[in-house]
């Protein structure tokens, strides 16, 4: 006889807690965005701590944590935002794996820094797979629990087969800093030719402030107005100087409707539209955007494509080193 598989009962859902994994790649050209954990590094770290694959399904917790009850033993870990987990009211560390027993209740303290925390459980969340991913895409009702955030009374199944170990720790040097002052690296383009030299300088020299309009689709910033080049609108583009003939939007692209309030598109973004994209955030730095709370002061820092590719390789290496550090 084997013990029945552990499940997790949702007693309180938190603000908007969703099942997310490495993402639903390959359908963006059909209008279905990749979704997945907004902070992919913290996703990998949470999974590494509990012995899962880097892209396995976890709970993404934003701003306010859920209250969960375990029906059996499990090894869990929380990474990302500073929002301390508690087992039966007793504090547990972030970035470390710990054991929970049958009947234990896991909840969370207030958010101290960052925005999104990732709760991984050994074996992963075994919820439904749509188009190759368990990630919740609420607008499309894909993945997750019936395509929506978790709700009170849900019972989340836990997969079997991974052997988690309590007491593993992500070393300090491999934990990202959570700050209210951040730099986000970008490659300029594809529509930065719509900006004057002054408009370009304003984009890169302004300390932008993240507004409360920040969710899985996009993050809107305030702080300046970008000067655009005068033109006759081409056929198919609207009259506003920020309008372009409709074009695909890359994940991480920064569109600037009206030349004010840049929006960084994130992993639940719409796949195309008619606003100029002046730059694109490096895929690794989308983790920094994901952890930005409203009022975070943000500078966009230009790098060239060669540097961006090098930084991507370094990030991949960092995740590999983290896995190595946790699997001795």
């Amino acid at each position, binding site marked *: 006889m084997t013990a029945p598989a552990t499940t997790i009962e949702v007693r309180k859902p938190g603000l908007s807690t969703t099942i997310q994994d490495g993402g639903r790649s390959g359908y963006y050209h059909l209008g279905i965005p990749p979704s997945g954990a907004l902070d992919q590094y913290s996703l990998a770290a949470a999974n590494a701590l509990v012995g899962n694959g880097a892209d396995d399904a976890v709970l993404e917790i934003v701003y*306010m944590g859920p209250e969960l009850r375990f029906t059996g033993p499990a090894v869990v870990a929380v990474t990302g935002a500073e929002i301390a987990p508690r087992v039966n009211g007793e504090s547990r560390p972030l970035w470390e794996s710990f054991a929970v027993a049958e009947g234990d209740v896991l909840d969370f303290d207030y958010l101290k820094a960052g925005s999104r925390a990732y709760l991984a459980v050994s074996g992963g969340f075994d919820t439904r797979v749509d188009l190759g991913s368990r990630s919740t895409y609420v607008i499309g009702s894909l993945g997750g629990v019936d395509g929506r955030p978790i709700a009170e009374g849900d019972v989340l199944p836990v997969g079997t087969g991974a052997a988690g170990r309590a007491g593993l720790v992500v070393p300090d040097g491999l934990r990202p800093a959570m700050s209210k002052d951040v730099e986000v690296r970008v490659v300029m383009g594809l529509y930065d030719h719509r900006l004057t030299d002054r408009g370009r300088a304003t984009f890169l020299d302004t300390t932008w402030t993240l507004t409360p309009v920040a969710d899985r689709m996009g993050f809107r910033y305030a702080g300046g107005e970008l000067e655009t080049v005068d033109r006759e609108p081409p056929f198919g583009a609207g009259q506003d100087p920020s309008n372009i003939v409709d074009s695909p939007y890359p994940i991480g692209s920064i569109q600037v409707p009206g030349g004010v309030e840049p929006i960084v598109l994130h992993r639940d973004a719409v796949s195309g539209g008619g606003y100029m994209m002046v730059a694109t955030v490096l895929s690794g730095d989308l983790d920094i955007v994901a952890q930005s709370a*409203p*009022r975070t002061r943000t500078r966009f820092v230009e790098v060239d494509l060669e540097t961006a590719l090098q930084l991507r390789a370094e990030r991949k290496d960092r995740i590999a080193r983290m896995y190595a550090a946790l699997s001795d």
Partner: protein
Amino acid sequence: MPRHEVVSPIPGVFYRRPDPDSPPFAEDGASVTDDSPVGLVEVMKSFHQIPAGASGTVVEFLVGDEDEVDAGQPVAVVETA
């Protein structure tokens, strides 16, 4: 008199009224109980009520209507009996 700080658990925009045409949840000097709302915080297009968290008298609001608040920021003070 002990003073209890009412804290917003989430970041967002703080509102004193349930909707623009209604009176505030609580005026200065109002009596509140543990679960009486003192305001709303809006973030990601959802509204989250902030309960007083203690019984007593609202003596002061620390932030204005429609001010942006951080997670963990005190928004009001309740004097408990």
